[in-house]
């Protein structure tokens, strides 16, 4: 299939917001999405962006029945390992269902890896849900490690009231 991968620009935020909701639906967590198109525009395209994005596009003749040509995205940011140094974290990787199986997901992830290496990163990190077997199989086939299984790392989070309480001076 004919597709291209390019850096996201501010005009892509509408489609990225749409696909963020689609991904959340797939992960059975739609009610968790509070971010809007406007938030993405402000947070991703200001002087000190919180994230970077890449989008996968198909030509007009392959557009979806709703008319979309932007059919996949990856959202990432730079992070740090106190052991390995510069790292890149891939927050989201998504391809619309009808465009899967064509190498688009792999192309997006490879691009993030390439950009990370160019920036001097030594790790590409992300998370996946344990029941998401198709994604887990995909990632494992690309040669990654599940460091929760192999090393025992657990992902922890503080938010809402607990975080407010911690943040009190």
């Amino acid at each position: 299939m004919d597709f291209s991968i390019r850096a996201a620009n501010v005009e892509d935020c509408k489609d990225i917001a749409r696909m963020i909701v689609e991904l959340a639906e797939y992960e059975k967590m739609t009610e968790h999405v509070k971010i809007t198109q406007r938030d993405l525009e402000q947070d991703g395209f200001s002087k000190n962006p919180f994230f970077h994005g890449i989008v996968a596009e198909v030509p007009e003749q392959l557009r979806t029945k709703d008319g979309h040509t932007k059919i996949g995205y990856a959202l990432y940011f730079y992070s740090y390992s106190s052991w390995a140094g510069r790292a890149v974290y891939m927050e989201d990787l998504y391809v619309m269902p009808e465009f899967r199986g064509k190498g688009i997901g792999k192309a997006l992830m490879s691009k993030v890896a390439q950009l990370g290496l160019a920036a001097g990163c030594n790790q590409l990190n992300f998370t996946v849900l344990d029941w998401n077997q198709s994604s887990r199989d995909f990632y494992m086939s690309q040669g990654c490690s599940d460091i929760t299984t192999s090393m025992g790392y657990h992902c922890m989070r503080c938010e809402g009231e607990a975080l407010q309480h911690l943040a009190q001076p």
Partner: protein
Amino acid sequence: MNFKIRPAIKEDCKEISRMIMELAVYENMPDQVKITHEELERDGFCESPFFECLVAEVPEEHKSKEGFTVVGYALYFYTYSTWKGPSIFLEDLYVMPEFRGNGIGKGLLCKVAEVGKKKQCVRLQLSVLDWNTPSRDFYAAKGAQDLTVSEGWHAIRFDGQSLDNLANEAAKI
């Protein structure tokens, strides 16, 4: 115990590097530490730093037996949740063993949360090893949820050869 928490300066990187190694020894993985104070200086104190760091300092009269007054640190960076917005990831939190039990760890954690709040961060995230019960209890007591247990999230990593191989695929696009 009298201590203060302040933002790290470039000159603290040697101490932070020392403590990174102490933490790695505690986590049974000292051979995993590949960076030195030089990378910390370059990456934490440049135009667009990859991380920020707070250090905990005690007065001279309380220095450690080897003579250190910088006795703890918290290293963190900003992240983004596509569901909730700006967040903070606490990469390391460490207090030298002889200084534990004095509220320094809690002080560092709270200070990171306060920094995050000022930047409108809605989440503070971190990872902890499953066998590290004192740390798991510490974070649970502060209201942290274990998302691996409650929601099934697994941490995945590409590094070394697997990362090179993946990046090489991009040239074929």
